[in-house]
């Protein structure tokens, strides 16, 4: 929940609770952002808002609570998000509904509207994207539409903030007045049957909160909850034959054996009437819209997939090439900063804690901020332009063969940014088996926090020209391993029938710079905040564990040796040896040595083993741990103080490859694991994930290590 003012609303009379409802991708979240200056996540595909979000704000003398509900095409329980919306609208307490509709596609949007109108709730319709509609030459007569529907319709544009105040004023006005009866009228046979049921309920003075008309419509539509309510009432015995007769009558009229289908047709014909009355297409519709022209290239049967791969390749090239430019300065800044701060601290232990612990650890993580920013911009572009759904379309055939659903692509790509929102967006998958399978695979998509590890190792072992390609290969092979894992899981643990694939392909939209800037800024700040708090604390812990217990005997032994030598080089050798010996007998060294045999077949030394273990807390900690360990450890000569050099000097190529493989596959960070467990619904799935990823990571790393050893 987001509390915009940072204060909670006192319970007073002037409180309006608004439910924001609309079909997916009509700009509900964007509307809420422009109403309240909130910063909800906005994207151009269905399923951005997966849970209801509350936003509070004040307007005139009123306290508003706006509940942003996940988009829903109709009143069905097809996906989890649709269930969230449906349940909320039917069971929760709220004052008024704002129905957000896309003015450029009214006919489709009214399908949900007409269902909302049959509920006994106050409704205000927000005709969103009015500016876009105008550009396309579509004119909507809002006044006439208000009159025809019996609910106020207000033209707004969330993007340009047009009509927002009018909308809120209209909400207040509607809130203050009694509800007008809806003017939604069905065909004659349906109206006849509604009248008959209403008459019957009226005769028996049936007590209900909803209007009789509303109950009658729900009964005719086979609404389960209404049935349950009436089922235990004595009037049921008489009502049942009336309903059976009514259903037969309506089905006969529609030449169908499905009452829900019949009602959908009823709504559709009502909507066609409304659209014909209020919408005017001024300019001639072009034969091919811009979206279709772009699509003819981007989802071309042969070119589509190569184009997509090219985009991804370009993104990772940029991530490395452009991201590397400021790295040198950041690195320089932190070593200067460490030296400057260090020279002001007299106490050896405290200086070491600050310089080698906190500054080295945090610095190692901050170093990768430029890379992170570029990756986030790429993902934000993918999300906001509408290209994501195209890729889902292109890849569905291939995904389907791997046991995944085309729509799994959306959470999977989100997983390249961060696993946490990815786990949440898996809710767009309707079927629990598909969703669980996708949850298990998301971890294979390397998240942004793992990028620093890859950049570090790619920089250490490959030439700068190759490093971008290496990044691309790492990400793609991670995804490939994920697909193979999906197939294996589908054939074993998640056997079952395939779910249908029916997905909307949104219009292409040019993302606003503001939106991208905002998304990227929030994510980057989160990364930096994590570096400043969690990573700093973890670095202190790692520093402590690697410095204690002090071994006086060792220090004295080397102290004497160092004093007795005159040769500077020899002195340095002894100093290094002391550092190495001290580190090895520290707490961390003990842990590392203890787990070293487990990782020995993969060619990891104890430092790498420790880094992997601390990485369970967060993947950034892998880099900060290595930073602390190598800044304390063996190589303390001046020219070689950068971490990249330390890594390329101390770690063999084969071990490095095995290390990358483990990082790619093993358990995601603590926070992500918690979200995974919540989304999967049971703690047992966490243990499955732990076992699955550990076994996969270990065996693949073992294979990779030996293959590389064999060839080098």
């Amino acid at each position, binding site marked *: 929940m987001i509390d915009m003012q940072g204060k909670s609303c006192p319970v007073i009379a002037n409180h309006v609770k608004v439910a924001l409802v609309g079909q997916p991708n009509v700009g509900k979240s964007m509307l809420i952002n422009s109403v309240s200056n909130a910063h909800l996540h906005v994207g151009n595909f269905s399923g951005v808002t997966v849970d209801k979000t509350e936003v509070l704000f004040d307007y005139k003398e009123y306290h508003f609570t706006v509940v942003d509900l996940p988009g829903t*095409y*109709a009143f*069905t329980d*097809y996906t989890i998000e649709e269930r969230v919306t449906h349940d909320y609208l039917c069971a929760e307490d709220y004052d008024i509904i704002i129905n957000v509709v896309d003015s*450029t*596609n009214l*006919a*489709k949007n009214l*399908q949900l509207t007409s269902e909302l109108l049959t509920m006994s709730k106050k409704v205000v319709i927000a005709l969103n994207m009015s500016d876009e509609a105008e550009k396309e030459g579509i004119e909507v007569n809002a006044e006439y539409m208000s009159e025809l529907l019996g609910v106020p319709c207000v033209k707004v544009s969330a993007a340009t903030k047009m009509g927002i105040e009018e909308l809120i004023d209209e909400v207040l006005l509607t809130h203050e007045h009694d509800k007008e009866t809806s003017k939604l009228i069905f065909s004659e046979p349906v109206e006849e049957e509604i009248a008959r049921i209403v008459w019957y309920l009226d005769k028996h003075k049936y007590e209900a909160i909803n209007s009789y008309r509303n109950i009658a419509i729900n009964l005719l539509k086979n609404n389960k909850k209404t049935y349950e309510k009436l089922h235990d009432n004595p009037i049921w015995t008489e009502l049942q034959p009336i309903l059976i007769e009514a259903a037969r009558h309506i089905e006969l009229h529609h030449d*169908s054996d*499905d009452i*829900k*289908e019949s009602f*959908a*047709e009823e709504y*559709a014909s009502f909507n066609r009437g409304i659209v014909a009355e209020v919408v005017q297409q001024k300019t001639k519709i072009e034969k091919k819209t811009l*979206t*279709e022209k772009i*699509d*003819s290239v981007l*989802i071309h*049967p*042969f070119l*589509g*997939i190569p184009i997509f791969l090219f985009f991804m390749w370009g993104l990772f090239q940029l991530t490395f090439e452009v991201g590397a430019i400021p790295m040198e300065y950041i690195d320089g800044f932190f070593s200067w900063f460490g030296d400057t701060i260090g020279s002001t601290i007299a106490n050896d232990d405290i200086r070491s804690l600050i310089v080698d612990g906190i500054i080295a650890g945090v610095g190692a993580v901050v170093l990768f901020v430029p890379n992170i920013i570029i990756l986030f911009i790429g993902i934000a572009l993918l999300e906001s332009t509408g290209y994501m*759904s195209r890729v*889902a*379309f*292109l890849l*569905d*055939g291939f995904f*389907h063969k791997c046991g995944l659903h*085309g729509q799994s692509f959306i959470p999977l790509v989100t997983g390249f940014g961060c696993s946490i929102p990815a786990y949440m967006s898996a809710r767009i998958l309707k079927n629990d088996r598909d969703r669980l399978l996708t949850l298990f695979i998301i971890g294979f998509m390397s998240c942004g926090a793992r990028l620093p590890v890859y950049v570090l190792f790619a920089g250490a072992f490959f030439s700068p020209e190759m490093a971008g390609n290496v990044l691309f290969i790492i990400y793609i092979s991670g995804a490939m391993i994920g697909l193979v894992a999906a197939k294996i899981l589908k054939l074993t643990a998640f056997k079952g029938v*395939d779910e*249908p*694939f*029916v*997905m*909307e*392909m*949104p219009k292409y939209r040019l993302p606003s710079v503001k939106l991208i800037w905002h998304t990227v800024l929030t994510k980057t700040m989160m990364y930096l905040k994590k570096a400043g708090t969690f990573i700093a604390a973890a670095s202190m812990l790692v520093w402590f564990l690697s410095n204690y217990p002090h071994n006086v005997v060792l220090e004295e032994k080397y102290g004497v040796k160092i004093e007795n030598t005159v040769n500077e080089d020899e002195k340095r050798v002894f100093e290094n040896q002391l550092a190495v010996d001290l580190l090895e007998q520290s707490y961390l060294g003990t842990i590392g040595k203890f787990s070293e045999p487990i990782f020995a077949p993969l060619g990891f030394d104890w430092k790498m083993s420790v880094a992997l273990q601390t990485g369970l807390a967060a993947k950034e900690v892998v880099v900060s741990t290595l930073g602390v360990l190598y800044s304390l450890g063996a190589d303390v000569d001046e020219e070689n103080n950068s971490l990249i050099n330390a890594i390329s000097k101390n770690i063999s190529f084969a071990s490095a490859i095995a290390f990358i493989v483990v990082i790619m596959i093993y358990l995601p960070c603590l926070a992500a694991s918690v979200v995974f467990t919540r989304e999967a619904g049971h703690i047992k799935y966490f243990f499955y994930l732990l076992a699955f990823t550990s076994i996969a990571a270990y065996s693949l790393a073992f294979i990779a290590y030996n293959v590389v050893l064999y060839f080098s």
Partner: protein
Amino acid sequence: MSPKKENLNTKTLLDCKKACVVQVTKLNAKDELKQRLISFGIMKEATIEVLEYAPAKSTIEVKVGKMRIALRDKEAALIEVEKI
């Protein structure tokens, strides 16, 4: 009407070529999928235009009203259509 001719008449969306415009005559989908198709506007008498096929015809993009929808071959085969 000969049986052969009847077969020609009851074709599904999957049989349509690219850029073909057809009208829905019947939905053979069951329960939830049917609801889903209907909520996307794919219902009796709706006009559908075939926009694009994915490689190997595994997925198909159609246009209903102003909305573009992606369907898998299996789902498209459940939608009976006739030429208009």
